[in-house]
């Protein structure tokens, strides 16, 4: 009886602790999490439409809106850049920056990691690089939301990357040859069952790591900024304001770097995995 009582009290205190924690972290999570509305305090809230099709909840969410914003923005910029190349060979202004990034993806990411025949993967790599970059940068704009800090979005990107890796490997080596090539040569027969499991696991851990890395990096920076600003309200003193603001600003600048680095890493690792799938003689 006494143990039951203590357990009940323990559960109650846990519940209250969780409840109080909810109140404290709610505003941080509100910034991080996806939602069904766009809120622009103090101006108001836009409620997004809910769609249910074929038993799946296909509602438009906040992150989806910012994905579309990123898509529209990058399409506009890149198509304009493509048109400017028709006019003259020499890039002008912002197109120089785009060209540096495109040439970087082509010569520093795709060409060394994939090697021969890297051109056919360039559209995917360039799109994923610019998409993550644009989404990350949009996440840094006030009132916006970082769509790449949503595990569903990064998982989707990783799924596409997984598909590109597998299809690329199969197109080069044939479906049967691709799966046979996954297992290293010269492995004793009794090791085969283990190796098959290990290699198949390896196939899925790669995109899993891609998804979690991008998600965690983009989430962490925002949580740190929020936590630093939250310090003001937790300590209830104005003296912490300069510290909080300067540290938050520092993290914000770091986020700009992280936005670039994460786009680079996702593209680089995708390219590396494509290279490994296409050229299996390792």
């Amino acid at each position, binding site marked *: 009886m006494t143990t039951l009582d203590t357990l009940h009290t323990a559960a109650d205190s846990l519940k209250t602790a969780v409840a109080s924690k909810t109140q404290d972290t709610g505003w941080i999570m509100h910034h991080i999490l996806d939602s069904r509305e766009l809120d622009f305090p103090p101006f108001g809230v836009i409620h997004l439409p809910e769609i249910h099709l074929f038993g799946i909840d296909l509602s438009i969410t906040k992150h989806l809106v910012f994905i579309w914003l990123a898509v529209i923005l990058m399409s506009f910029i890149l198509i304009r850049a*493509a048109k400017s190349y028709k006019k003259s060979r020499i890039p002008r202004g912002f197109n120089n920056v785009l060209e540096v990034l495109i040439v970087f993806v082509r010569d520093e990411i795709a060409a060394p990691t994939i090697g021969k025949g890297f051109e056919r993967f360039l559209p995917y790599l360039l799109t994923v690089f610019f998409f993550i970059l644009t989404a990350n940068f949009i996440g840094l704009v006030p009132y916006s939301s970082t769509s790449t800090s949503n595990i569903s979005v990064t998982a989707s990107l990783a799924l596409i990357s997984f598909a590109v890796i597998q299809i690329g490997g199969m197109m080069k080596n044939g479906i049967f040859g691709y799966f046979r090539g996954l297992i290293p040569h010269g492995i004793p027969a009794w090791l085969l069952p283990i190796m098959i499991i290990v290699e198949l696991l390896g196939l899925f851990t790669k995109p899993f790591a891609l998804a979690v890395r991008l998600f965690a990096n983009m989430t962490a920076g925002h949580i740190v900024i929020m936590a630093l600003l939250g310090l003001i309200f937790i300590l209830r003193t104005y003296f912490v304001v300069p510290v909080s603001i300067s540290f938050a600003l520092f993290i914000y600048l770091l986020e700009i770097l992280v936005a670039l680095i994460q786009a680079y890493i996702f593209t680089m690792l995708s390219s590396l995995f494509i290279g490994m799938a296409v050229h299996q003689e390792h």
Partner: protein
Amino acid sequence: MLLSKLIAIIALSGSEAGGGSPLDVNPGLILWTIVTFILLMVILKKAAWKPILNSLSERELFIKESLEKAEKARIDAEKLIQDNKSAMVKAEKEAQHIIEQTREYSEKLKSQMLDESKAQSAKMIEDAKSEIERKNQEAFVKLKNQVAEIAVDAAEKIIRSNLDKEKQVGIINKYLDELQKN
């Protein structure tokens, strides 16, 4: 049983906590993202990546070709300079040769002319000498005739004055003969 109840309480409180966790997976959003991304990739591949990458590689090819052309032009120019230099050396040699030849020729011409003039002058001297000789001879003959005439005239005068003309002529002739013999 207690444990299961506790787990249930914790799980319940956990799900109550945020009304969502960052790790919640939303299948609808995954579907939307994949569809959006694939559409984006297809559109950008047609509208952006192909033209941009094509013009980039075209430009790289153009730059590479231009550099190669410049290098070739440089080599050609160098070759041309080398050719010019060797041609100049050759021309100089030729000129030297021509000067040498001309000098030799002029030397030859000079000596020839000198010889010729010498010969001519010698001939002229010879001619003059023979002319002088001839004239001398002529003058001598004339003188002889004149002398004879003068002598005859003188003799005539003497004879006329001496009357004994015939004797006188005979003496003179005798004298003249003697003179001629000398």
